[in-house]
């Protein structure tokens, strides 16, 4: 749970480009506090030092640290010509639950940032609560960003009560990475160098492919890091469960309608996959990454956002959409999107500026694709430059079958729900809880969550 990555995360980045709190802010802060010191009358008036802000500055909150963080700076830099006179002031907050908690609280208070990055899966909680302001789609269109520029499956999730509350920046699916030599030696590549999806098209074949990979690597087959992780178990499970053609029906108040047998089938597959012989079995997130980059395994089940890390270790690293193991194509994914934290009385000019800035950033999406993310703004992925991106172009198809978290208030990235589901799955995969009991435990936990009154 604590974010203490090993040495790999400690590589130094470019210096000094991070958005800073300017001296003017310091001055403003000190004057505001002087006002506080001067007496009660000033107390209510002083407000936030930065809320008033420089009119040309759009304040952006995001959870991107590490490689993504540096890349976002580059993205903003690339987009700058498209937003004349506008500066972006970034604030990076700790990713995960703390980020979403702070964002919700700041939005409730009405003095949040001008725009924030949020996972699309979070919208189901935020929008009904009134924590967000809707985007002005006409204004976006004026800056060249239209509904038709996005995949339908993604765009549909941006809507709540006929308003658009999120502008997607990317889709980031849960996919597979592999070392091409190992996979080739194991006979799992097509002539074009793609992963042979057929070889993974049933639970048995997937397991067999794992054994082939293990033989080819001389060590082990497929790495998956999930121990004590707050989301990984759920990411793998939910994508596979949707591949069985089932979904969760989640009526308010409960109970959930789910196919417990299909759930158990998926869990049983996960148990067999993470067996401790062919494939390592007790890896946490950083350990799995280490296992793959050290070529302990030939493949890893991972979010595409680790592309940068993997490519550093293996410049030729291959990638493919998550194989369809249970018949129906479905790839677990989420989407970083821009949202407007609630403002009681926003300045129209500033909102316009914000729309322009976001549109500019979307159009510069080619930069963002470097990190492995699939830009949501499709004019970018249709370019020849994008088609040449290796291996990104090889899994861009994953975007066609993405499934996001169920659209309920308690689910989504960084939620306690994902954590709670992942815990049960860990008990099954690591501690041997039987698949049907694990499925029942998950259903029970979903029911508990459903029985809580919705805060909206």
């Amino acid at each position: 749970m604590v974010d203490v990555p090993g040495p790999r995360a400690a590589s130094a980045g470019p210096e000094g480009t991070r958005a800073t709190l300017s001296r003017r802010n310091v001055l403003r802060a000190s004057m505001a506090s002087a006002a506080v010191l001067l007496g009660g009358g000033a107390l209510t008036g002083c407000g936030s030092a930065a809320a008033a802000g420089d009119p040309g500055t759009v304040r952006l909150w995001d959870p991107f640290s590490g490689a993504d963080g540096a890349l976002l700076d580059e993205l903003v830099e690339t987009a700058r010509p498209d937003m004349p006179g506008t500066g972006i002031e970034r604030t990076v907050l700790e990713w995960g639950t703390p980020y979403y908690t702070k964002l919700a609280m700041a939005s409730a208070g009405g003095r949040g940032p001008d725009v924030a990055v949020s996972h699309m899966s979070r919208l189901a909680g935020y929008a009904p609560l009134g924590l967000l302001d809707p985007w002005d789609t006409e204004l976006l269109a004026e800056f060249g960003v239209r509904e038709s520029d996005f995949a339908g499956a993604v765009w549909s999730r941006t809507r709540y009560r006929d308003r658009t509350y999120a502008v997607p920046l990317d889709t980031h699916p849960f996919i597979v990475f592999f070392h091409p030599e190992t996979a080739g030696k194991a006979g799992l590549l097509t002539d074009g160098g793609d992963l042979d999806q057929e070889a993974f098209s049933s639970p048995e074949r997937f397991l067999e492919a794992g054994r082939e990979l293990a033989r080819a690597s001389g060590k082990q087959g497929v790495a998956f890091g999930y121990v004590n992780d707050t989301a990984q178990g759920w990411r793998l499970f939910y994508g596979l469960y949707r591949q069985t053609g089932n979904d969760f029906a989640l009526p308010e108040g409960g109970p959930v309608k789910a196919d417990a047998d299909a759930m158990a089938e998926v869990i049983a597959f996960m148990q067999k996959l993470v067996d401790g012989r062919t494939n390592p079995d007790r890896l946490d997130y950083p350990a799995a990454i280490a296992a793959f980059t050290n070529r302990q395994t030939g493949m890893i089940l991972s979010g595409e956002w680790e592309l940068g890390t993997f490519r550093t270790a293996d410049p030729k690293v291959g990638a493919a959409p998550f194989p369809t193991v249970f018949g129906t194509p479905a790839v677990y994914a989420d989407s970083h999107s821009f949202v407007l934290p609630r403002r009681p009385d926003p300045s129209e000019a500033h909102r316009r500026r914000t729309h322009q800035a976001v549109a500019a950033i979307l159009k510069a999406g080619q930069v963002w694709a470097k990190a492995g993310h699939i830009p949501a703004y499709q004019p970018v992925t249709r370019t020849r430059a994008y088609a040449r991106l290796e291996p990104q172009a090889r899994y861009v198809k994953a975007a066609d079958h993405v499934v996001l978290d169920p659209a309920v208030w308690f689910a989504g990235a960084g939620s306690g729900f994902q954590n709670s589901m992942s815990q049960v799955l860990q008990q099954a995969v690591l501690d041997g809880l039987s698949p049907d009991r694990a499925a029942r435990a998950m259903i029970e936990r979903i029911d508990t969550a459903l029985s809580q009154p919705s805060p909206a």
Partner: protein
Amino acid sequence: MSTPLASPGRRRAADDATAGLGPRLRRVFPPGLLFALPFLVLFVLFLLWPMVQGVWMSLTDASLSAHDPSFVGLDNYTEALGDAEMWRTIWNTVWFTLVSTVPLVVVALGMALLVHTGLPGQWVWRLAFFAPYLLPVGVIGLLWGWLYQPDLGLYNHLLGAVGLDGYAWLSDESIAMYAIVIATLWWTVGFNFLLFLAALQAIPDHLYEAAALDGAGAWRRLWHVTLPQLRRITSVVTVLQILASLKVFDQVYLLTRGGPNGSTRPVVEYLYDMGFTGYRLGYASAISYVFFALIILASAVQFLALLRREK
């Protein structure tokens, strides 16, 4: 401690504070009340009102949304009492309190006894033991996260240097709580140490002189003079420590976020999680009052125990 008597001259002279007010206003606002008024206003605004509002919120489905909350009766309390996770966090809190209080009192006492011997270097000892208490908890979070870092942290390297395996201090369910207790001990023991030290220095010399005249050695003086004299301060420090430990949140939140798998999550974090992360302010208020009941219960038990001992 004497209770103050009414000052005899108050009627005649007490009034410059209210000189501008007419006699009727002066009756409504006697000068004493005026002195207390700033405090009372803040007290009502930021303690009494929130307490009452908290009770009200706990009876509604208030949330982070702008929507008007509706009254739900005791639903939140019923839900809380049946909420296994809440009970687990209460148990975590109580467990932390049990495990942390003993070393925080005993080590502090040991430090104080050693420093009180008057050995050279008083300044250094006080700095070493008390300075950590002055560190903001944010520093504790960063520092101990780094000390406990599995691959690069100091402690695993020191263990490695003597041929032992390192621990996943903060991500192993079976030891994360103890890791937090150790960090807490390091951070806050200095406070108790100073309280003990002050008490030790208040023991009158003549008690030692008398004991020395009776031929009592150092150990006997410790057992028969020092420790008995410390009995009261020890119970006071223990009480304060228990109450402080029950309120634990900061260092746990910063070091493990309550993890791994909720094994270190204290009840205060649970109410924060339910209220702000989970948007449900009403439910969080109900948990707040369950937590308050816990504090009151602990205080009452300790109060009774103290009373009995003092008799």
